[in-house]
């Protein structure tokens, strides 16, 4: 293979792995967006904080998978609690009030992470073996593991939302809370579940990205921006578009960085993509426009 093609293949594969993470963050954003119609700005900081918690557990000698399970469960509880204590009493309040809560959460989790765990860069271990996979060593074992975990999580969520009674009730509660109540659905509970789910998804993303980028209180800041771009590409109203959106953003970011604009401008490219999508196709590449005859 010629060197250019080799670099191309390498960048595409690396883009798949990081794109999978963006897809997870996008999914977390979309889950909250569907019920609140706002972007949860604190999603990244919540994920970072969860990753700190996982790190602390690992430092305390807890085995990796147990620490991961505790972290994901803990994130779920905290997410559900945030909805029950902060968002639920504010139901029906002005948009700015709810946005203020999101920004407040962002600041709180950011400061808490810094205060409890310091601002230094920390090495976070990977559960996957070090080194590369395959004959040409294009993709690290951690990258392959990341892809596998993200695909598994997406598959489980897809099956749960598509085929279970609870998943259907959660979708209904997000689509039209009042109509859902008239079906006997406990909407508050469903929305709290959604918040817990989003926090758990964020925690998984944080634990998967931390071995690649080092752990510090700002870890997820840029990841969240990529995730936001991914959510818009896939369609902010469309959970099924989050992962494809993440892959598209991840791969194009890597290719642009390698061949066109250089690595320094990768984040700018993601922001540009966000603006372009909002201008040209606000419903996203995979977003469905609402069909409604009257």
């Amino acid at each position, binding site marked *: 293979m010629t060197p250019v093609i080799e670099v191309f293949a390498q960048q595409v594969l690396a883009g798949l792995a990081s794109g999978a993470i963006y897809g997870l963050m996008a999914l977390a954003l979309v889950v909250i967006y569907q019920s609140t119609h706002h972007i949860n700005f604190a999603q990244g900081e919540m994920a970072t904080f969860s990753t700190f918690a996982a790190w602390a557990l690992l430092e305390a000698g807890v085995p990796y998978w147990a620490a991961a399970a505790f972290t994901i469960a803990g994130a779920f509880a905290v997410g559900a609690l945030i909805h029950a204590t902060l968002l639920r009493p504010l139901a029906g309040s002005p948009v700015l009030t709810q946005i203020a809560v999101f920004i407040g959460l962002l600041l709180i989790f950011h400061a808490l992470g810094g205060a409890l765990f310091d601002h230094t860069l920390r090495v976070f271990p990977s559960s996957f073996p070090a080194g590369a996979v395959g004959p040409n060593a294009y993709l690290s074992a951690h990258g392959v593991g990341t892809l596998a975990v993200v695909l598994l999580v997406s598959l489980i969520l897809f099956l749960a939302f598509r085929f279970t*009674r609870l998943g*259907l*009730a959660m*979708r*209904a509660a997000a*689509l*039209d809370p*009042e*109509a*859902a*109540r*008239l*079906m*006997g*659905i*406990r*909407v508050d509970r469903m929305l709290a579940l959604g918040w817990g789910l989003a926090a758990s998804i964020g925690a998984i993303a944080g634990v998967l990205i931390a071995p690649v980028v080092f752990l510090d209180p700002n870890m997820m800041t840029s990841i969240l921006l990529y995730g936001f771009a991914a959510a818009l590409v896939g369609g902010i109203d469309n959970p099924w578009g989050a992962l494809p959106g993440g892959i598209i953003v991840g791969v194009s970011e890597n290719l642009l960085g390698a061949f066109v604009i250089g690595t320094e401008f990768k984040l700018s490219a993601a922001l540009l993509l966000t603006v372009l999508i909002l201008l040209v196709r606000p419903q996203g590449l995979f977003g*469905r426009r*609402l*069909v*409604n*005859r*009257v």
Partner: protein
Amino acid sequence: MDTRDLWASTAWTVLGNRASSAPSALEVQSLVVRRDSIAVIHGLGFSVERGETLLLLGVNGAGKTTLLRALSGLIAASGVIRLAGQRIDGLRAEDRVAAGLMQVPDTRGLFHTLSLEDNLRLGAHARGDRAAIAADLDRVWKRFPKLHERRRQQAGTLSGGEQQMLAIGRALMARPLVLMIDEPSAGLAPQAIGTIQDLLLAIREELGVALLIAEQLSGGVSAGVDRVMHLDSGRVAFLGSPDDPGCRHLPSQDLMRRCDP
């Protein structure tokens, strides 16, 4: 529970003799609804029996929708509401559904981006009996073969009349004891209104559901009505049989026509 047993034994068949000692399906006493501390429903009292259709008439703003929303628990109200003898006024809206009270709102409340089938399944959310739910789903599809052909499509793609049928079919999936429908004829062509009319008659005859139907004074459903309740500024102006001479002395010409069909 009473409701469930009733359905289990007589589901989708003609309901037999109504024992006179049995409590009303829906009983309302001194219901008051306030909006910004001003009463908009002034101490209403009425009841609906099993297998009975009560037509709630009134002009826009008379309080029909407010009354239905207060009964279903979407807005706060004071007073006593009994469902088959059991008080439900302390329950939240989602728990009143489980008790057997179902409302089809004036917006129909369909989930437009979900499939027809998912919409119907959501109607049975408060129930736990999987096998019976599947059987009821089949019955609804049999009743609406045209909806069955399109069961995987988004509910928003249906015409207005089809949406109303789906909304009513979905409410039946809850096996309600009392079904309240807010303006089933709103925005529908006369032909579609006829179809809805036939459907409501069939529900009353076959399922023994107590029907509380709100309509404007003119147009809308009229056949098969057992009693008429005329609501005027949140008060009962008339409550009785459509054949009752009092019904004809109501102000509206349209209403007079409907009192004596």
